[in-house]
């Protein structure tokens, strides 16, 4: 026992207080001392606690008009989109932001290559990288690495906590106790993920196309020639973002964790693709590709852009498949969002 005890050890038995306290167990309190040997830096503990603040608490009323529905929705959208760049909005985690940055850079390799070889004037290599039908298709729908390493992973990271985190943090209460209906909520969440994907895919596509025009000094004839292709590819980018978003968000709405939707999305995209590829290589039948969201979209895009078809079945089947997959996902999403609890689950 040290010298600077703040109080005396309590006697072993509290007999002095004869009253039969509710506690009738053998009340023994031993070894009651504050064992500061005087060496530890006791100063470290003093400053932190906020003492009861002395300030005048004044209720300030606010008389203002509230904006209509579309402004509220804009606020949700802004909250999610700006969170990628700025503090004070939805805090996307660092790995997600870094990966988005990486993907934006990495998906512009074709821009860099086209520029490089265009500048050097190496026509063979420029033809290999420059804007043409196949390269436009490849910018959006190329499987390796874009649709295995870039876009699906971005979609998985974005979609992971989108709705499920609202469920686990209880922030869904913040939306639904305010004048925001479930449709708006789901639609804005959808739009935010879709837009981020759209900006990554179609943004870089547009850069690719227009940089080629500007730097290479392409003429009107070339532009008239290629612009329909570019538009078709642009539409393909939208279909791709839409499909990934709808599958991912529906997974996010059924789960409470952040990881099930992410793994689920990757599993669906890669698993169906792998299955179809096994069947294709074994029996030379491409039909199973209709269940793979990536391949269904790719097939439709091949038809739209007009590149060589790599699938044997008619592309309309893939179109139907794209519609069905999106329909199912959106149905699941709508169904789950309408049954979201107001409080934390």
């Amino acid at each position: 026992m040290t010298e600077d005890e703040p109080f005396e050890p309590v006697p072993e038995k509290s007999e002095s207080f004869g009253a039969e306290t509710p506690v009738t167990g053998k009340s023994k309190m031993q070894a009651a001392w504050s064992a500061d040997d005087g060496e530890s830096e006791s100063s470290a503990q003093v400053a932190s606690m906020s003492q009861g603040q002395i300030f005048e608490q004044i209720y300030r009323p606010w008389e203002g008009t509230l904006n209509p529905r579309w402004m509220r929705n804009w606020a949700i959208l802004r909250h999610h989109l700006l969170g990628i760049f700025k503090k004070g909005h939805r805090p996307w985690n660092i790995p997600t932001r870094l990966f988005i940055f990486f993907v934006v850079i990495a998906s512009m390799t074709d821009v860099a290559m086209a520029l490089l070889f265009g500048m050097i004037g190496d026509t063979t290599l420029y033809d290999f990288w420059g804007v043409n039908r196949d390269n436009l298709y490849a910018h959006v729908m190329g499987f390796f690495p874009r649709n295995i390493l870039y876009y699906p992973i971005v979609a998985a990271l974005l979609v992971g906590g989108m709705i499920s985190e609202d469920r686990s943090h209880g922030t869904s209460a913040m939306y639904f106790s305010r004048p925001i209906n479930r449709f708006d909520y789901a639609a804005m969440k959808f739009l935010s993920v879709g837009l981020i994907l759209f900006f990554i895919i179609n943004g870089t596509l547009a850069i690719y196309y227009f940089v080629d025009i500007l730097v290479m000094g392409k003429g009107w004839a070339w532009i008239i020639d290629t612009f329909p292709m570019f538009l078709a590819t642009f539409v393909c980018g939208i279909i791709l973002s839409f499909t990934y978003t709808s599958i991912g968000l529906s997974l996010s709405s059924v789960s409470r964790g952040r990881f099930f939707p992410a793994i689920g999305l990757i599993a669906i995209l890669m698993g169906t693709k792998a299955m179809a590829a096994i069947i294709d290589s074994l029996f030379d039948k491409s039909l199973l590709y209709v269940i793979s969201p990536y391949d269904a979209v790719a097939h439709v895009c091949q038809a739209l852009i007009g590149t060589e078809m790599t699938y044997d079945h008619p592309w309309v089947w893939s179109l139907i498949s794209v519609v069905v997959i999106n329909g199912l996902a959106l149905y699941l999403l709508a169904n789950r969002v309408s049954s979201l609890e107001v409080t934390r689950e």
Partner: protein
Amino acid sequence: MMPDMTQHGKAEVEEWKPVSNTPVILFDRVSKTYGRINALGGVSLGISGGVTGILGMNGAGKSTLFKLMMGKVKPSSGAIRLFGTDPWKNSAPYSRVGFVPEHEKLYDWMTAFDFITTFARLHGMTREEASKEATRVLSFVSLDDVMHKKIGQFSKGMRQRVKIAHALVNDPELIILDEPLQGCDPLARTTIMNVIKQLGAMGRTVLVSSHILHEIERITEQIVILHRGRVLALGNSHAIREMLDQHPHKIVIDCENPRELSKDFVDLDEVTGISFSNPNKLLIETKHLGEIHKKLPEIIVQSNQLVTGIDNPDDDLQSILMYLTGGSL
């Protein structure tokens, strides 16, 4: 008196024996820091027997204290002993411990009975023993009529009782309850308080933490006060109050004629001050509350005055906490 602090309990569960002649819980100069935050700084205490309330504000170190006891976190320095054994990386002492965590989460998909039997088997019971014990503890917390219902259907109070029951299944000597009353309605609260008191009466060592001081007052008078990671006081709350000599005790007596009544007190040595805060109140200040109170009924009866109230306005946990923490309440 002090147990052997060099002992590192590495023994198997079956071979593990509590060290005799030590307090059930012993903290020796335990500190715990999280990064730069000092959660506990040099806490020493020993507790055996009875119900003990752990008090302190949010962030005072209560939950860190419990986590250290339950081997969830490692002390930055110092030694912790449960029945004389270090609980970090050694779960052997928990065969004699029942722990009720603060978390509300329970396995909603299980029935109360299944939940308790499953966790009873982790104490090394066979299926038969486990189901026998489960039935016993569930009736102890009076949930025997619903024990085959899913926990997900239970209300908060019932869930708390399930948690308490699960902690009691091994007939523990030490029961630790972290905020057992939080979120319960008054009915459930009364039931749980009675259960806790009963456990104390059975001679178990029970630790209870709560934010609500008067709840603790209703359960026990044996308290530990933590503040900013330090033990400020420990023992019987009234005894602690008595030790706080620098704050004279106040006795307020409601009567018709306080000035008249005060004359009987002026002569007493123990009285350090008398004042009249209000025409019908007599305020006596003293450093020896017990002495005054011993004489008080006699004096009043002899004075023939109608006294309608006696109060020690600062002999409660709220005041103790306030005095000890330097008025930050």
